[in-house]
């Protein structure tokens, strides 16, 4: 099999991930909690941090990207898995109501649809994304991002420019 998996003791490996990220990037916070390496980074360094995780530390799997709308700021969680029990959880906070962040599709190609979903639901603009379209909502004439807290569930959906 061509893909090589990390071996050895899980605790050592997690400490290695944290060191590897710490040495190359300025982490705002970095701790090992159980089987998870939790790091908080600035939004502009997310693509570099994930590139380090993938290329140097060989954390191969991006599980999902969660966006949380904290009304005034957006928190993004990138869940990375090394497929052998270890998890690297990269968090970042984007201030403001019009979030922009660099895309990680060239690091983890699977981020393509996760970022499309985040754009669709929250309006997060991913700089450098090859194909930033909506996944679930209508492609045309629909101006809302439904998972924003400002989108009330009783909102009547409007299609701008239609009729």
């Amino acid at each position, binding site marked *: 099999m061509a893909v090589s998996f990390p071996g050895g003791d899980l605790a050592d490996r997690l400490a290695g991930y944290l060191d590897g990220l710490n040495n190359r990037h300025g982490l705002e916070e970095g701790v090992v909690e159980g089987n998870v390496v939790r790091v908080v980074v600035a939004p502009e360094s997310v693509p570099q941090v994930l590139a380090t995780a993938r290329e140097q530390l060989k954390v191969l799997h991006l599980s*999902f990207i*969660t966006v*949380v709308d904290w009304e005034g700021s957006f928190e993004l969680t990138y869940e990375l898995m090394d497929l052998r029990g270890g998890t690297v959880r990269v968090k970042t906070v984007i201030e403001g109501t019009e979030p922009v962040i660099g895309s990680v599709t060239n690091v*983890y190609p699977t981020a393509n649809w996760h970022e499309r979903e985040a754009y669709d639901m929250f309006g997060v603009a991913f700089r450098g994304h090859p194909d930033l379209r909506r996944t679930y909502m209508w492609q045309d004439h629909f101006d809302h991002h*439904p998972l924003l807290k400002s989108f009330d569930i009783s909102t009547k959906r409007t299609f701008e420019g239609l009729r």
Partner: protein
Amino acid sequence: MLSEERRNETVALDGTASGRLARPDIRSEFGLETMDMNMGPQHPAMHGLLRLILELDGETVMRCDPVMGYLHRSQEKIAENRMYPAVVPMTDRLDYFANIHNEHGYVLAVEDVLDAEIPPRAEYIRVLMSELMRLASHIPSIGFLMLELGAFTPILYAFRERERIQNFLEAITGARMMFHYFRIGGVKADLPPGILEEISEYLDGLEGRFQTDTVDLVTGSEIYVARTKDVGKMTPEQALDMGVTGPPLRGTGVDFDIRRDYPYSVYPELDFDVVTDDAGDVAASYRVRIGEVWQSIRIIRQVIEKMPEGPVMADLGRRLRPREGDGFGRVESPRGEFAVHVVSDGSDSAYRVHYRDPSFCNMQLLQEVVPGHYLPDIMPILGMIDPVSGGWDK
């Protein structure tokens, strides 16, 4: 009639037998045109409401662009507006062919943020239900694959087995499809008396019937082999890049199973193998599913043997108010990695719930794998992913 030279150029392959033109520029040189075609959302062979925008060069697919959202029910928004226990029945509606796994992922995430302890009997019942559900999902998914290839018999045998398993699930939970059996802190009710013996008896019969009616019937069939071998072929690196999990990933030889590598519930106490295959095509994922059926039977037998006595529900109080923070739940659903991320702000309902559904993530491989295949090969490739509409659309 094409000249010899021109024909050679037109069918020149890029070396991978993919059918993709080696020199796209000859298209304009010879005035060749491609055709755009919509497949679905209403298509008799499509897995639910999926629309594929295809660019065809003759019968070869040049581009495949899945369009989703026809069954979007804003599950995540609904989950933000309901109290924690009231979200469990909604998760049943996500991947409606593996409801138990959705419930399991969600309750694990909430229990994570609640720091709850679950009684051992409840954990064993959860594993029992998960593996029964896996059987009830894997066996028909093999049948669906054959149905898409034009064979009608395997699906009938598969649904006969699913029906029997659903009878057990109904006896345990009280519902046939939308179970709402898992609760935050345990399960709804204890097992009815005598059900374990009945399941054990049923498994004895299932082993023989599955071997003769599905494995022997399908595996050697010439048409099946011709339609699935080397179709949808991908390398392990490609599969990992595309975020594929579950049987399609294990079919490429990547030895990854949440049950073993990110253990939850009582899986560490149980003995089972992770089935892999090296071919990386549709036939490989089929063989992985066959192997997982045998492993599920093995797990259920161990669970029946080890089932402890005791309560099935932890006392977490009437009103669930978790601490502020994140909760994560991750389970191996029949389709791959199902993960739930719950963000709590300390109130009665979640501030944010995010579902990572394997159908959604695995479907990305359509964009990468389908180009170069013939149009009729799309159906076996979809059968390999076995996506469920409720899953990818949330």
